[in-house]
């Protein structure tokens, strides 16, 4: 694929991602909201694909759309006593607003401060899976292992929390 991204598909997918995200926020049915989130994740995978990040796109599909979103749906459906409970009013109160604004500010701050500047020139060929794997397991091996350790701790904690240990 050429280094310049085709603008029209990119714009369509970008708008789709944003539109689905907005629909997720505005839909009053929690199950519908979860499905909108999923649609947003799938169109993000499409964006990655357009940017020649094939591996990232597939992982996005496999992990976020295929597992995380499904898990969210699963939990939502499990915790609903009746189908009618799925419809909730949107909370416009002040604390909710404050929470939303502070989260948005945090996200903006992190994006602006942590993401490196966009490089002036792109490599002519997008790196493949092999290069990605080598890079991940040589240069970035320590952060990678650390992340997996944190996830493991979270997993063990979740198992303990959900009543695996008998509390006398």
């Amino acid at each position: 694929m050429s280094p310049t991204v085709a603008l029209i598909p990119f714009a369509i997918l970008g708008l789709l991602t944003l539109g689905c995200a907005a629909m997720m926020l505005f839909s009053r049915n929690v199950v519908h909201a979860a499905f909108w989130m999923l649609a947003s994740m799938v169109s993000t995978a499409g964006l990655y694909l357009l940017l020649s990040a094939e591996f990232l796109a597939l992982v996005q599909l496999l992990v976020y759309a295929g597992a995380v979103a499904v898990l969210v749906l699963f939990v939502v459906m499990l915790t609903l006593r009746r189908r009618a409970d799925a419809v909730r009013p949107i909370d416009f109160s002040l604390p909710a607003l404050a929470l939303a604004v502070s989260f948005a500010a945090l996200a903006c701050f992190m994006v602006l401060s942590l993401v490196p500047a966009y490089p002036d020139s792109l490599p002519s060929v997008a790196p493949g899976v092999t290069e990605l794997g080598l890079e991940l397991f040589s240069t970035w091996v320590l952060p990678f292992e650390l992340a997996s350790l944190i996830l493991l701790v979270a997993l063990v904690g979740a198992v303990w929390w959900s009543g695996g240990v008998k509390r006398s």
Partner: protein
Amino acid sequence: MNPILVACLRVLAGLGLMLLNGVVLIYMLRKVLGHLHVRLGPMNVGWHGTVQTVADVLKLLTKEDPTPRAVDKALYFLAPAVVFIPSLAAYAALPFSKTWAMADLATGLLFTFGIMSLVPLGILMAGWSSANKWSLLGGMRAVGQQIAYEVPLLLSALPVVLMVGSLNLNDIVAAQDKLWFFIPQFPALLLFVVASLVELNQTPFDMSEAESELVAGFSSEYASMKFGLLFLSEFSNLFIMAGLTVTLFFGGWSLPFIPAQIQAGFAPIVFVAKTYLVIFFFMWIRGTFPRVRVDQLQQLGWKVLLPANLAWLLVTGVAVKLVEAVAR
């Protein structure tokens, strides 16, 4: 030729294969299960009941299509499409021969798994939107088991990837020209088959539509062609998983001891024949094993398959490194 035209033709070929596969597999399933149960299966329409499926398809197409009043309309109509589209797209990476594939992807194996991981979504959609307790239970069971077994499934394909060093399905086939991987990777094959049976909601793991408990699980409220789509994608997933088994462990479209030039002529036929043999094996299991319980299923997944997979991955990794060291 125009590349867009070629792409359209390829998608159409995939669709045709999917439909034909559905028709063939329905007949095969009824015949194989019939003979396993010491009965004849369909016999009346056509020679040994061969045209029975055509009659069934016509019936399915012309049936009344009622929509229950309480369903969540949008999701209810969307669900069959969400189940159908991934299982059509999953054909894209399967190599029928060296050149016959809808797309030759560098990450073909991952693509197939990634696309297939979207199927549970449609099933959940169908189960929830049907406004029926049995549908919801069936959908929940299907998704619970499919998410749980995606991990063992991916892990059991990994040792093969380790041996080949590529995710491209054609590279995996090419690496098996001397030795099919089911010999060195037999434990991986066993783990892969068990995990894929669960992914396919096949007996002994078909709790999601357990007829005796849940009517028809997530598809209870669907009729006519909407049911047809759900059904078709189930059969097509069977073909894809069997095709993957053949590609990963049984040399794909290649045959041993026959020169490559001669093989090239009938490679797709070899691939399809092997795939149907694997499907026959899956049906054999379906006809002979009793259904396991839901809790037994999760025990098997997390306490047996996952550790076994990790252990075998470790063994393969060490072996691959040792062979490399010796070769150097």
